[in-house]
Each structure stands twice: as structure tokens, then as C-alpha cells.
């Protein structure tokens, strides 16, 4: 055998051996690992059992791992590593051992393998190889068939594996019995360093969990517990602090109940928080170990709220009021109906919706942008509203503020007829100047004058009328309308009347225009007979009353004389005497009161007659004078005497009483004389008034007849018109009858005092009788009724002539009377003038003598005496002039200035003469002379004017001119107002129109200046008239320069107002008493009706007595006592009921 084949054999055997070695090692290694596992499991089981029994602590559990790791390290070092090395890097000896083990498996092999290996390793280079090869071969042959792997047996794994399985079974068993505990124990083993405590015998559950709530609302937190009953139960609240990262914790004790349920309600939650429940146990092991529930979270959300509210109030357009903002956050609205209210809000957070909710369940969505909302509504009636808002989470605001809306009414307009402002009886003028005042809170739309014309007699037919009126705005709320109401179109006949009122419509466009009416007034056309009879009766009554008063006063005087005589014998004042005197005083007081009544009656009568144009100017003046006389009848001396008597009576002072009685007696005597004089004068005035009436009646008869005649001339008269004319003529016949009767009556009454006038009146009556005027009128009326128009015309013409004649006769009679009066006044003026002339000559003489004298002249004293006498005479002249000037306007104011200057110069002359300075005196005397001459010239001028004038006073002329000017100015004002662009219907006025207005204004201005000059610049009479020349000039300028604005209109109104004032001033100057009564503005208010009886049952006797007592004139202190006393009585009376 070759070396090569030996090598191959060896290699093969060696490899096999290595493979067996590796396999054997790995098997051993597996067995080792099984044992390790078995060890570990055993150890684990041991610990689990220990833990279950004793709850092993951390050190014990750590020891488990120390032992385990220690054992494993030892196994690895001792077994695993050597085995692995042996498997992969065996040493020869290990292989030999393996070979030996293999050999032992087969007897034939025995050590063959070892030998083979050893022999192979022992080969020598010296030739012994053959033997060795042979040996090796033989050896190889021996174990060639041997299975090396037969020595390897997996059975070695069986034992440890079975044990391991047994151990696993034990584990499974334990897990089945107490899985939690076993698992926990296993966990504890696996986490040796973790401390595992003893489980609590209670568990808490948080049933309310996490939730969201609204701020300030309530939240209920609830839970349950299971297990042993806790010793204490807590609710723990944890809130994040705002100013730090830390939390604040509150603990709230909860009651422990048997039901194992608990809860707690938190009110007004403000902030978010976490919470849980905590239970404390009263067990030793758990003393420091409370049980806790799971943690819940309560998230608190804010409600939205209105942070800022702004309300804008926009009144309806027609009011022209600007919109206004209410103060911030003020939503209370008081506004006119139709006002738009815009509500602007800002919320604290972003909004999803905003609404206005009203008390009538209506709602209005607002426009929403982010956290703002805006909405608006109209004010229709009183109510309330709220602002409802909701945020993105649909959370709404809490109890929104309720604001009130007060719907203000557009007030009713108000219209008042301020002029005439009372019922009227028409006089001659068939026009009434109306002044209407309008008021409304927001302006006007229309004004009209409306009413009914109620026809006299018959069936009381009525005709309605309505006249639109223009008005001038004073300000947006007020206006006036001046309108001269022409009643001619109504064709009024006596006893017709018109009920009229003003009606204004405001411009309320929201609730509709409102209409207001003024008080209704009546204007009536009385018949002449009615007026005259009434006035005659009133005059007659007043005269009778005055006569009665005179008689009463006479009795009183006699009684006072008697008392005075008796009192001379009496030393003491007896109660009876006191009463007697008191009674006489009462009578005198009543007489004084009666005087006032009569004066008021005369005043009223005068006013009525004047309205009917039934008084001539002269008679009117006398009536005024009469009133003044009545007023002055009760002299201050008499009133003083009455007061003294009263005082003496109260003090029971006999001496004082006697003195007062004497004074009283004298006063009453004077009073009696005055009454007598007044009575006589009254009778005279009555006659003059009758004369006026007759003249006026004659004039009216002629005018009416003329009017009928003119109507008759018309060709196309209808039957109705003819009937109307016949009626009119019939009415004239009645008037003519009355006139004739009146003539007869007056002529008899005039016989005694005015014989000449009586004669003239009788002649007139005879004329009427002879001409059969009333009969002709009746005939004419019948002719018209029978359609005999030509005959009627003829009768009419005859009648016209006769009535004209009658009018002329009456006027002549009156003129004769007036002339007599004028002559009387003229005589007085002439007398003064003559006195002035004489004085002038006297003054001239004194002047001449003064010039011829020196300081040492013996004539100076005589000159001074003469000058003093002159001064006295001049004083008398001034007094006479004053009296005359009270009766006529023709004495100019310059006369007063001249006379004042005259007096001053005479005074200075006298002073110089007294100082023996004749030269100085002569200078003043010269001036005095000059003054005399000026006064004479002025007087001459006055007399000349009076002679030319129709009346003695000139009053009529001035009034006529003023009336005319006022009328023209009024018309001009109307035209100007009509051209105002904003007031009138027309467009802008043309320059020509304005030029015409300017010319008219200038004409009035010139007329005014002329009259002013004629009247001698009498500022005292004309009031402020003299000041308006400039105003007129400004208006003329403005109009010429095409300026037409409210200022011009206002200026024109002032001019008119001053012209009217001037008329009033003239009247006032003439008749101050009359003016006062006219000035009393008629009050629109009338007393409400009397209270129903049941409402005033307590107005008992006590109260009446109280009122009476208070009127007794006690002092305030006494009055108070009286009141207190009655109060007490009254209360006692009540309490006793």
C-alpha cells in the first residue's frame, strides 16, 4: 500500500471522527441548555410561589435574577464554551477519547481507531513506513465498517425535557387557579426593581366623567365606590391658576352613604377644572393610601354677552329732526311713532346670530359680522325689546336686558282764532280781520276756515263753506294766518249768522294727518231795530240805576246828618249805634260797587254802539267822558273817610268816630252832587246818542233803499231774487216805522234840553208822515211780490228821494248840534288866543319899561310885580290849554314846548328883576314875547285846522288814514308773502313784480310821512309809527334790489304791527278806559261743567263758612287761626259721622 492511500484512509477516519465529535458536542450542549431552562423555570416557580405566599420584596426579586444570571454564567463557562470549543476545535485527546468510545461500542474495533490515529502520528522517515502502513491498513480494515455515530444518542435529552414539561404543567395549573396573581407575580419577577404594593380593598368610579358647562351655571359631579366603605370621601378640584403654571386644589368632603353613590353640585362655575374623587380607608395597611377615582375634566365656557350697545334714533323725515345717538349702553327709547331705531351691538365673542326680540313675540334678525350685530326697527307703539345673541356653540346670552320703547304721539295740531276770538255781531263792515295761530310739533299741511251760514227765519237752512287760508311760518312749530274775511259773498241779512272755525291739518305721514279745529265762533248780523232797542234799554236802565243811586245817596246823606245830630248828644258809643253806622257804611259800599257796575255797562254799551257805527265821534267822546266821571265819583276823600269810620268802629273810639262821620257826611254830600251832575250829563249824552242813532238810521234806510233799487234795475231777476228783494223792502218798512216812532219819541225827549233840535226832529217826523214812507215801502214790497217791477222801480225812486231828503235833514240836525259844540270849543280856543294876545302886549310893555330902567330905578319893584302877575296869568292859560288839548288833537305838542319855554323865560325875567338887573330881564322878556307870538301862531293854525276838519277833535281823520294805511300794508304783506318761493305757489318773482311791491311800499311810506307832518309829529299819539319810516325805506331798497327773503317779510309784518299799534295808540289816547277793556284777550278756556253732586258732598257748611270768614279781610295771622279752627271743627265733624 502506498503512502498516498494511507493518507486518504487517515483523512477519512479523522473526518468522520471530527463529525462525530461535533455532533456529540452539540447534543451535549442542547442537553445543557435544557437543564438551564429547567433550572430557570424551577427558580421562577419557586419565586412565584413565594410571591403568592409572601409578596416578595424587591431584594428578593433581584436575588432571583442574580442567582439566575450567576447560574447561567457558570453553565456557559463550565459547559457551553468548552463544549463549543470541543465541537469545533477538538484536541487529539478528545478525539482519542471519542475513538475509544466508538471502539467500546464494537468489540472488534476496540482501540483500533485510537491505534490507527496514534500509529499514523508516529511514522518515521527511516524506512519503517511499510510496517506502519500495513498496520494502519489493518487497523483501518478493522473499523472501516464501524459506525462512528453510533455513540451519539439523543436520549440524553429526554430526561431534562420531561422535567421541563412537568414544570410547565405546574405553571399552567397555577395560572388556571390565580391568573391575575400569577401574572402579577410574574410581572414582579420580570420587574425586579419595581415596587408592587398591596391592592386597595376599594375602588372609586367617576361616573360624571369629563364635560362642558356654561360659566356661572351649575354642574353636578357624581361617582360610585365598590368594596369596603370608605372612612372619608372627598371631591378634589384642581384649577389652573391664572398667574402661574401651578394649580390650586380644593378638597370638598362628601358624605358616605350606604348606596355607594355620591355626588356634589357646584354652583356658578367660573373656570375650567379637573376633578376626581378620593376615598380614605380606616385600615391599618391603607392608612396612608387613599383610593382615587379616575380624573374628570370640566371645561367652562363663557356665555356671550353684549359688551357695548349703541342706539341711533332717526325721527321720521317729515319732522326734519336730525338723527341722534343715545348715550352708550342706553337702550331706553322715547321716540315719535315712525322713528327708526338702529341698534348696534358688540359682543364679547364671535357671534353666530343676533336678534331683536319684541314683547309681542316678534323678532328681527340682526346682521352679524364677527362679534358685532346691527339691526333696526320702526317705533309703532309702546313696547319693549331685547337683544338676543348666540355664539358659535349656540350658547345664548343670559337674561338679556329689556329696554322700553315709548312711542310718542305726534301731537294734535292746535289752532286758535286769536282775533276776534269771540262771538261777534257785525257792524257796518262786512269783513272780519282774522288772526289765526297754529301750533304743531312738526309743522302743518293745510289750514282752512270752515263753518255754516245759518239763514234767518224759516227752516234754519244752512250752507256749509270752507275757505283755504295761507299762513306764515314763525318757526317750524308755529305759524300765523292773517286774513281779512270778506262776508259779502254770504249775502247776510239781519238775524243771519255764521258759525265758523279754523281747521288745521298737520303733516304727520306716519299715523296719518291729524285734524284740529279751533273753538267755533258765531258772527251774527243783528237788525238795526234790535241794536237800537237794546242800547236804548241799556241806557235807560243805566240812567234809572244812576237815578236810584242818587236817591239812595240822598237818603244816606240825610241818615248821616241825623246820626251826626244824635251823636252830638251821646257820650258813649252804643252797640245799636255801631250797628246803625255799620249798616250805613254797607250801603255806601254797595253804592260804590253799583257805580262800577253802571260804568261797566256803559263801557259795554259804548263798545257795541261803536261797532255798529251808531255813535258819532263826539258822542263817543262824551260816553268816554261819562265813564270817566263814573269812575271818579267815588273820590279818594270819600274812601278815606270810609276807612276811618271802619277803624273808629273797630276801636269803638267815639271821638274818632264823630270826626270820621263828619268827614263822611261831607264826602257823601259831594258824592251826591257828583252823581246828580253825572246823571244830568248822562241824560244829555243819551240825547246825543239818540241823535246819532237817528242819523245813522236815516243813512242806513237810504243806503238800503238804494241797494234794493240797484238790484231792481237788473233785468234778469229770478223769482227767488224778487222775493228776496220784496222781503228786504218789507224789512226796510219795519225799520222806517221804527225810525218814525223814534223820531217822535226823541223830539219829545229833546224838547226840554235842545228845543231847536227837537223842532228839527219833529219836522223830520212830519215829513215821514206826510210822505207816507213806510206805506210806500209796503206798497213797493207788494208790487215786487206781484211782479209789477216797473211800478216797484218807480216807487223805489220816489222813496230814495224822500229818504235822501230825510238823511239830509237828520245830518243837518246833527251838524247843527255838532256846530254848537265846535263853536263852544272854538270859543274856548279863541279866548285863550285872545288872552295870549293881551299877555303879549302886556309883556311888550314890561319889556319897554325894563329897557328904559336902570339898576337904581324905582320902577323895578313894580315891573317885578307885573311880571309875576303875567306869570300867574300864563299858568292859567296853560291850564286852559291843557283842558282844550284833552278834547282835540289839533293842539300840537309844539304848543306845550312853547309854553314851557315861555314860563322859563318869564321866570328868568322875574329873577333878574328881583336882582335889580333890568337889562338881563329884558333879554328874557324879549324871548317870552317871541314865545307868545309863536304860541298865538300855533293856536291860529290849530283853529284853522279844526274849522276845516269834520270833527272837532280830528280823531276821525287820523283813524281813517291809519286804517287805510294799515289795510294797504296788510294787502302788500300778503302779496309779498305769496311771492316768497318757499311759501307761495308761484315760482320766483319777476323783477317787475318786486318793483311793483317796492312802489306800493314807497307809496305807503310817503302817506305815512305826510300824515305825520300834518299831525305835527305827534309821537305820543302815533306810538312807534314815527320809527318805521326807516323800516319802510329798507323794505323799498330790498325790493328794488330784487331781495325777497324772510327778513323783508318780517320787516313788513313789523310795519303793519306798528300801524295797528298807532291806531290803538290813538284810541288809547282818546279812550283809555275803552282800550283797557278791548285789550283783555278773550280766553279760549271756559270753565268745565259743575261737579256732580256726589263728588262735592263734603263741601259742607263748615267750608263755606271758612271761605266766608277768610273773605272778611282779617290779617293773615287771623286767617291762619280761622283755618286751623275750621279744620279742627271739620275733623271733629268727620270723626263723629
Amino acid at each position, binding site marked *: 500500500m502506498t503512502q498516498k492511500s494511507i493518507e486518504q484512509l487517515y483523512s477519512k477516519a479523522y473526518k468522520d471522527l471530527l463529525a462525530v465529535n461535533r455532533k456529540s458536542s452539540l447534543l451535549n450542549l442542547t442537553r445543557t441548555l435544557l437543564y438551564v431552562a429547567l433550572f430557570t423555570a424551577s427558580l421562577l416557580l419557586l419565586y412565584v410561589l413565594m410571591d403568592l405566599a409572601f409578596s416578595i420584596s424587591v431584594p428578593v426579586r433581584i436575588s432571583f435574577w442574580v442567582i439566575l444570571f450567576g447560574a447561567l454564567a457558570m453553565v456557559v463557562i463550565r459547559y457551553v464554551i468548552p463544549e463549543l470549543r470541543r465541537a469545533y476545535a477538538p484536541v487529539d485527546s478528545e478525539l482519542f477519547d471519542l475513538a475509544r468510545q466508538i471502539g467500546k461500542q464494537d468489540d472488534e474495533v476496540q482501540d483500533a481507531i485510537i491505534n490507527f490515529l496514534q500509529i499514523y502520528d508516529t511514522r518515521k522517515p527511516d524506512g519503517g513506513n511499510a510496517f506502519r502502513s500495513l498496520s494502519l491498513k489493518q487497523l483501518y480494515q478493522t473499523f472501516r465498517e464501524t459506525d462512528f455515530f453510533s455513540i451519539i444518542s439523543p436520549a440524553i435529552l429526554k430526561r431534562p425535557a420531561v422535567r421541563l414539561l412537568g414544570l410547565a404543567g405546574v405553571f399552567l395549573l397555577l395560572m388556571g387557579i390565580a391568573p391575575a396573581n400569577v401574572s402579577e407575580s410574574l410581572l414582579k419577577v420580570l420587574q425586579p426593581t419595581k415596587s408592587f404594593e398591596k391592592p386597595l380593598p376599594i375602588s372609586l368610579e367617576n361616573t360624571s366623567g369629563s364635560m362642558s358647562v356654561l360659566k356661572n351655571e351649575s354642574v353636578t359631579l357624581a361617582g360610585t365606590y365598590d368594596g369596603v366603605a370608605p372612612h372619608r370621601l372627598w371631591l378634589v378640584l384642581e384649577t389652573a391658576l391664572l398667574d402661574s403654571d401651578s394649580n390650586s386644589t380644593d378638597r370638598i368632603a362628601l358624605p358616605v352613604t350606604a348606596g355607594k353613590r355620591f355626588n356634589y353640585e357646584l354652583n356658578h362655575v367660573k373656570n375650567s377644572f379637573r376633578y376626581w374623587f378620593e376615598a380614605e380607608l380606616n385600615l391599618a395597611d391603607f392608612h396612608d393610601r387613599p383610593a382615587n377615582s379616575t380624573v374628570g375634566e370640566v371645561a367652562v365656557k363663557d356665555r356671550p354677552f353684549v359688551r357695548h350697545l349703541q342706539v341711533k334714533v332717526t325721527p321720521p323725515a317729515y319732522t326734519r329732526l336730525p338723527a341722534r345717538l343715545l348715550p352708550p349702553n342706553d337702550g*331706553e327709547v*322715547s321716540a315719535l311713532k315712525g322713528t327708526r331705531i338702529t341698534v348696534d351691538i358688540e359682543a364679547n365673542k364671535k357671534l353666530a346670530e343676533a336678534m331683536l326680540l319684541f314683547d309681542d313675540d316678534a323678532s328681527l334678525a340682526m346682521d352679524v359680522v364677527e362679534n358685532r350685530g346691527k339691526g333696526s326697527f320702526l317705533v309703532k307703539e309702546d313696547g319693549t325689546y331685547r337683544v338676543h345673541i348666540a355664539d358659535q356653540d349656540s350658547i345664548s346670552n343670559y337674561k338679556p336686558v329689556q329696554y*322700553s320703547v*315709548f312711542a310718542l304721539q305726534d*301731537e294734535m295740531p*292746535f289752532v*286758535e282764532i286769536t282775533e276776534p276770538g269771540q262771538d261777534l255781531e257785525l257792524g257796518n263792515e262786512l269783513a272780519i280781520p282774522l288772526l289765526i295761530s297754529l*301750533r304743531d310739533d312738526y309743522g302743518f299741511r293745510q289750514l282752512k276756515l270752515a263753518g255754516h251760514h245759518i239763514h234767518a227765519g224759516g227752516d234754519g237752512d244752512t250752507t256749509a263753506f270752507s275757505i283755504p287760508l295761507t299762513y306764515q311760518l314763525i318757526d317750524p312749530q308755529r305759524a300765523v294766518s292773517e286774513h281779512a274775511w270778506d262776508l259779502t259773498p254770504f249775502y247776510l241779512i239781519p238775524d243771519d249768522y255764521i258759525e265758523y272755525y279754523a281747521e288745521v291739518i298737520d303733516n304727520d305721514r306716519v299715523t296719518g294727518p291729524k285734524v284740529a279745529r279751533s273753538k267755533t265762533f258765531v258772527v251774527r248780523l243783528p237788525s238795526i231795530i234790535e241794536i237800537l232797542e237794546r242800547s236804548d234799554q241799556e241806557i235807560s236802565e243805566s240812567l234809572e240805576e244812576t237815578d236810584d243811586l242818587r236817591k239812595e245817596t240822598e237818603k244816606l246823606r240825610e241818615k248821616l246828618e241825623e246820626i251826626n245830630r244824635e251823636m252830638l248828644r251821646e257820650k258813649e258809643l252804643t252797640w245799636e249805634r255801631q250797628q246803625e253806622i255799620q249798616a250805613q257804611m254797607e250801603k255806601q259800599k254797595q253804592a260804590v260797587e253799583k257805580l262800577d257796575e253802571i260804568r261797566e255797562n256803559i263801557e259795554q254799551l259804548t263798545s257795541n254802539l261803536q261797532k255798529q257805527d251808531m255813535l258819532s265821534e263826539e258822542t263817543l267822546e262824551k260816553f268816554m267822558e261819562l265813564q270817566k266821571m263814573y269812575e271818579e265819583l267815588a273820590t279818594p276823600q270819600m274812601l278815606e273817610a270810609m276807612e276811618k269810620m271802619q277803624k273808629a268802629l273797630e276801636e269803638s273810639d267815639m271821638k274818632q268816630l264823630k270826626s270820621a262821620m263828619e268827614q263822611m257826611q261831607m264826602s257823601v254830600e259831594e258824592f251826591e252832587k257828583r252823581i246828580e251832575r253825572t246823571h244830568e250829563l248822562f241824560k244829555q249824552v243819551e240825547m246825543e246818542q239818540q241823535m246819532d242813532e237817528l242819523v245813522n238810521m236815516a243813512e242806513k234806510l237810504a243806503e238800503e233803499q238804494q241797494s234794493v233799487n240797484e238790484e231792481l234795475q237788473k233785468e234778469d231777476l229770478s223769482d227767488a231774487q224778487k222775493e228776496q228783494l220784496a222781503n228786504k223792502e218789507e224789512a226796510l218798512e219795519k225799520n222806517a216805522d221804527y225810525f218814525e216812532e223814534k223820531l217822535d219819541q226823541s223830539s219829545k225827549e229833546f224838547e226840554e234840553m235842545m228845543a231847536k233840535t227837537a223842532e228839527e226832529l219833529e219836522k223830520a217826523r212830519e215829513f215821514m208822515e206826510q210822505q207816507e214812507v213806510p206805506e210806500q215801502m209796503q206798497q213797493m214790497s207788494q208790487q215786487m211780490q206781484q211782479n209789477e217791477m216797473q211800478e216797484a222801480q218807480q216807487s223805489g225812486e220816489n222813496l230814495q228821494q224822500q229818504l235822501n231828503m230825510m238823511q239830509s235833514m237828520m245830518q243837518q240836525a246833527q251838524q247843527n248840534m255838532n256846530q254848537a259844540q265846535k263853536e263852544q270849543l272854538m270859543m274856548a280856543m279863541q279866548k285863550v288866543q285872545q288872552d295870549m294876545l293881551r299877555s303879549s302886549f302886556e309883556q311888550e310893555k314890561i319889556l319897554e319899561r325894563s329897557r328904559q330902567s336902570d339898576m337904581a330905578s324905582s320902577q323895578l319893584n313894580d315891573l317885578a310885580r307885573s311880571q309875576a302877575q303875567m306869570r300867574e296869568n300864563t299858568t292859567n292859560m296853560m291850564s286852559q290849554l291843557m283842558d282844550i288839548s284833552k278834547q282835540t288833537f289839533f293842539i300840537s305838542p309844539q304848543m306845550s314846548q312853547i309854553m314851557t319855554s315861555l314860563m322859563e323865560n318869564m321866570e328868568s325875567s322875574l329873577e333878574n328883576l328881583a336882582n335889580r338887573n333890568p337889562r338881563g330881564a329884558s333879554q328874557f322878556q324879549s324871548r317870552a314875547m317871541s314865545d307868545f307870538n309863536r304860541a298865538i301862531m300855533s293856536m291860529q293854525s290849530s283853529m284853522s285846522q279844526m274849522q276845516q276838519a269834520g270833527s272837532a277833535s280830528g280823531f276821525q281823520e287820523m283813524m281813517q288814514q291809519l286804517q287805510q294805511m294799515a289795510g294797504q300794508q296788510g294787502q302788500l304783506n300778503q302779496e309779498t308773502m305769496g311771492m316768497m318761493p318757499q311759501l307761495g305757489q308761484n315760482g320766483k318773482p319777476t323783477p317787475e313784480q318786486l318793483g311793483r311791491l317796492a312802489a306800493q311800499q314807497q307809496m305807503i311810506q310817503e302817506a305815512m310821512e305826510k300824515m305825520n307832518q300834518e299831525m305835527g309829529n305827534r309821537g305820543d299819539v302815533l306810538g312807534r309809527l314815527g320809527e318805521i319810516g326807516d323800516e319802510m325805506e329798507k323794505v323799498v331798497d330790498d325790493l328794488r334790489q330784487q331781495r325777497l327773503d324772510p327778513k323783508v317779510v318780517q320787516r313788513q309784518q313789523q310795519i303793519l304791527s306798528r300801524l295797528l299799534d298807532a291806531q290803538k295808540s290813538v284810541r288809547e289816547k282818546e279812550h283809555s278806559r275803552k282800550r283797557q277793556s278791548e285789550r283783555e284777550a278773550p*280766553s*279760549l*278756556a271756559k*270753565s*268745565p*261743567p*259743575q*261737579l*256732580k253732586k*256726589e*263728588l*262735592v*258732598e*263734603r*263741601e259742607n257748611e263748615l*267750608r263755606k*263758612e*271758612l*271761605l*266766608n*270768614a*277768610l273773605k*272778611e279781610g*282779617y290779617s*293773615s*295771622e*287771623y*286767617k*291762619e*287761626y*280761622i*283755618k*286751623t*279752627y*275750621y*279744620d*279742627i271743627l*271739620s275733623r271733629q265733624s268727620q270723626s263723629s259721622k
Partner: protein
Amino acid sequence: MTRILRRSLLIVCLLLGSVCLHAQSPVNVVRVKYDGGGDWYGNRTTFVNLFDFMKSQLSMQVASKEATLSILDKDFFRYPIAYISGHGNIKFSDTEVTRLREYLIKGGFLWADDDFGMDKHFRREMEKVFPDQEWVEIPYSHPIYHINYNFPNGLPKIHKHAGGPPRGYGLFHEGRMVAFYSFNTDLSDGCENADIHENPPEVREAALKMGTNIILWALLQ
């Protein structure tokens, strides 16, 4: 009544009156403080002036200034006269309504003075107090216009207000006037300090006189 009896009465009055005047507390008025938003507090100087006027003209013992209380105040019934005024809304609660009615029925007197604007509200609330009664316009002949000062045409006109004549209304209970309502004139403003409303002296005097009449009537009726 005869003059002798009057004189006898006067003597008795002198004795009784002096005792009574010194024994009784000064006459005073309570201003009603109400809800609703209206200005119950206006016209601060009205009663100061009115009381001064009454003191100087009638030698009456009066307070220096009015008291101010709500109707529910326990002392409200201590005042014989209540006064209410304002420009705006007035609201009485149910309790106030009951108590005011009780006050008026038991002898109290209410003077309401419209300051312009309270009419509607005041009438509405008073309707609750006396639903069975109506305001009656007082005729000019009624003693309230004549008790001490003579007002032949009724209430004097102080301020324009709604325009037109002033109106005086009364509310009666069992024959007694329990309330007087001065409307469309403003007596309270008229009684205020002269420089506040710049009323002419005669207008102011008229207001003070009418105010005096009302107080006297309330005390003596």
C-alpha cells in the same frame, strides 16, 4: 253765620289756633319717588319757595323743604300731602298701587303736576290705583281756585307745553277730592327759583299762589 258768631269764633280761634299751631308739627309734603325712569327728582326749589311763600304770606308753620320717599316707605303715611311730578314714565308696582290707594282713601292727598310728558304714564298708573274712578275736570268755581287766592279762570298758565288752556283735574273718592292733577301749565316750574326758568314775576307769583291754594285745599277739605 252772623257777625257775632264769627267774632266769637275768632276769639276761640285765637286760643285754639295758637295751641294747635304750636302743638302740631309743620305742614310738609312728601315727594313720591317712583320707578319707571321718569325724573321724580326735578323741580328742586319748588317747595322751598312755596313753603317760604306760605310762611311769609299766611304765617303758616311749614317745613323748609319737602321730604322724598317711595310709596312703600314706612313713613310715607306720616305726610298728609304727596306730590308727584316729572317728564317721563312712571311705574307703580302692585304693592305701591295698593299702598297709594290706601293712603288716599285714608285721608291722604296727591298733587300731581305735569312737567310736560308724564300725562299718559301718570294717568295709566292712577287708573290702577282707582280703576273705578275717572279724572274730573274741576270747574273754575271750585274752592280750590278760591280758597285763599282768587283764580276766576282756573289754573294760571305758567309754561306753554302743549298749548291751549291749562287744565285742573280731580279724582274723588266718596265725595272727597283725593288727588288734584294740574296739567298743561307747570306750576312746579313756576314756583322754582326765578333765575331757573326766568318766568316773569307775576307768573311766578301766580304759581306760588295757586300752589298755596292746592296745599290749603288739601289740608282743609
